[in-house]
């Protein structure tokens, strides 16, 4: 490293710190203050650290609403991702292996699903017709419908790296199509599956808009909606709002620390291809 690279690096690090890190420090400091102190919204360190008390207060607020919200968000995320991985991989596999005129049609739908915003009120109308409005399984299916495009593109790209000889060997040995897929192909797709799981879990966990429309009701609250509720409730208790922001920021931070490589792979592949 040259002297020049060291100096640019230090200057740039200082800028990055001010622009991107200080806001998060602000959240942490203010989450540790008393209500009266946060009302002044300053950077001064708390006179008395109340981190733990604030944490307990946020968790207990509105009859332990946050715990319910975490439970709902986790159920939706896990349910949707299970279906997305299996169904998305099945489509990506057939799409890559079998060339036909249908492929173009399927691609058209995949791209439309990636780009077009959902028609919200008609979707509520369909969900009501099916009895799925305001239900967790309805929400899971919605997240599957909206996430499929991304998953299909990623799985399709990965299938093209698996040699066809493997399928053919399995077929010669008498395997049925579903056996070839579930016994031979799916286990080989572990790297891309991890990427899909990581990227989609963050997307679905952070989703605010769709639960707002399709999952109204106190008992259906999700993690992002607690923030929105707390905003009006805690006008004079900004410390608790900041604590809540901190609590919803921690899961993505942990995922980021442990799965940095997969996130980068997924975001750039998803970017380059969809």
């Amino acid at each position: 490293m040259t002297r020049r690279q060291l100096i640019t690096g230090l200057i740039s690090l200082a800028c990055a710190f001010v622009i991107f890190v200080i806001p998060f420090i602000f959240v942490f400091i203010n989450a540790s203050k008393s209500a009266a102190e946060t009302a002044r919204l300053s950077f001064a360190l708390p006179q008395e650290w109340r981190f733990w008390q604030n944490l307990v207060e946020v968790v207990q607020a509105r009859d332990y609403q946050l715990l319910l919200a975490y439970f709902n968000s986790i159920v939706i995320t896990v349910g949707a991702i299970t279906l997305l991985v299996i169904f998305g991989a099945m489509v990506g596999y057939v799409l890559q292996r079998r060339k036909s005129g249908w492929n173009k049609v399927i691609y058209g739908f995949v791209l439309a699903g990636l780009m077009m915003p959902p028609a919200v009120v008609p979707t509520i109308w369909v969900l009501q017709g099916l009895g799925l409005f305001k239900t967790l399984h309805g929400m899971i299916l919605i997240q599957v419908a909206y996430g499929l495009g991304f998953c299909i593109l990623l799985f399709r790209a990965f299938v093209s790296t698996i040699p066809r000889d493997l399928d053919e060997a399995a077929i010669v040995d008498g395997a049925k199509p579903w056996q070839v897929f579930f016994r031979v192909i799916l286990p080989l797709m572990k790297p891309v599956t991890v990427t899909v799981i990581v990227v989609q879990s963050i997307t679905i966990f952070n989703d605010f808009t769709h639960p707002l429309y399709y999952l109204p009701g106190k008992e259906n609250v999700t993690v992002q909606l607690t923030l929105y509720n707390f905003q009006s409730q805690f006008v004079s208790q900004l410390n608790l709002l900041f604590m809540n922001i901190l609590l919803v920021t921690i899961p993505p931070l942990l995922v980021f620390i442990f799965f940095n490589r997969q996130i980068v792979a997924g975001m750039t592949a998803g970017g380059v291809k969809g």
Partner: protein
Amino acid sequence: MRKRSPYPYWFVLPAAVIFTVLFLVPTIASFWFSLTNWDLFDASFIGFENYQQFFSEPFLLRGVVNTLFFAVLTSGAKTVLGLLLAVLLTSGMFAQGLQRSIVFFPVLVSTIGVGLLFTELMHPTEGVINLALGAVGIPGPGWLTNPKLALFSVAMVDIWRGVGLATLIYIAGLASISPDYYEAARIDGATRLQQFWRVTVPLVRPATTTVIILSLIGGLRLFDLIWAMTRGGPGFASDVLASVVYKQYQAGFYGLSTAGNVILFLLIAVLVVPLAFRFYRKEVDQ
């Protein structure tokens, strides 16, 4: 009899059913419902009245104009800043990996959390931004309370939050440029600036297309950040199509809300689809 393919189409079926029922059917139905006066039970046909209202009521039209302004501004800024940051973050400088992570992390954080945080930072009298400006003698504006500035302030936050993704895509794009080109340019006596304009910019074009497509779509569809920061206010000054759709839905004007949704489809169809299809054709044909 035709031999049965080892790659049967029923593999596509579960995904196709979910996608058709929950995405395609509502999308197609929206064209019909946008022409009606609708309360979820009864829809009566009223022709293009909802659309007429959209383009004659100033507060609805404002939403359309704001959506375009917001999408173009944020997309342009993310493209330019993303490329510059990517060049900087591949220059081999000190703490490069750490800085990549720092720039990227906001992409993963809850948008509502980011929005509420910046609403506090941008508070006109007590917010940290204006306190800092005041300390050096500049009177800070009412970032979110001034109707002329509100949408712009939200756009700044959106750029702060999204530039990391653009940077990441550009870093991947830069990595695919062979060092031979730079070597050849140096031998020909090109300066660093010339190398940037004549080698980097043309060869990183696929990444540029991707960044523009993604950020335009994101900008046109944006809802959560606006909702967390201004709720379209003050007045209707920072309303965008997605927030108008939500407000009209809450007010019970389902036909009008759906018309807003259709206008959003059409904007994306006109602005993004041609760009995307040209770009993805290569991918589909291989």
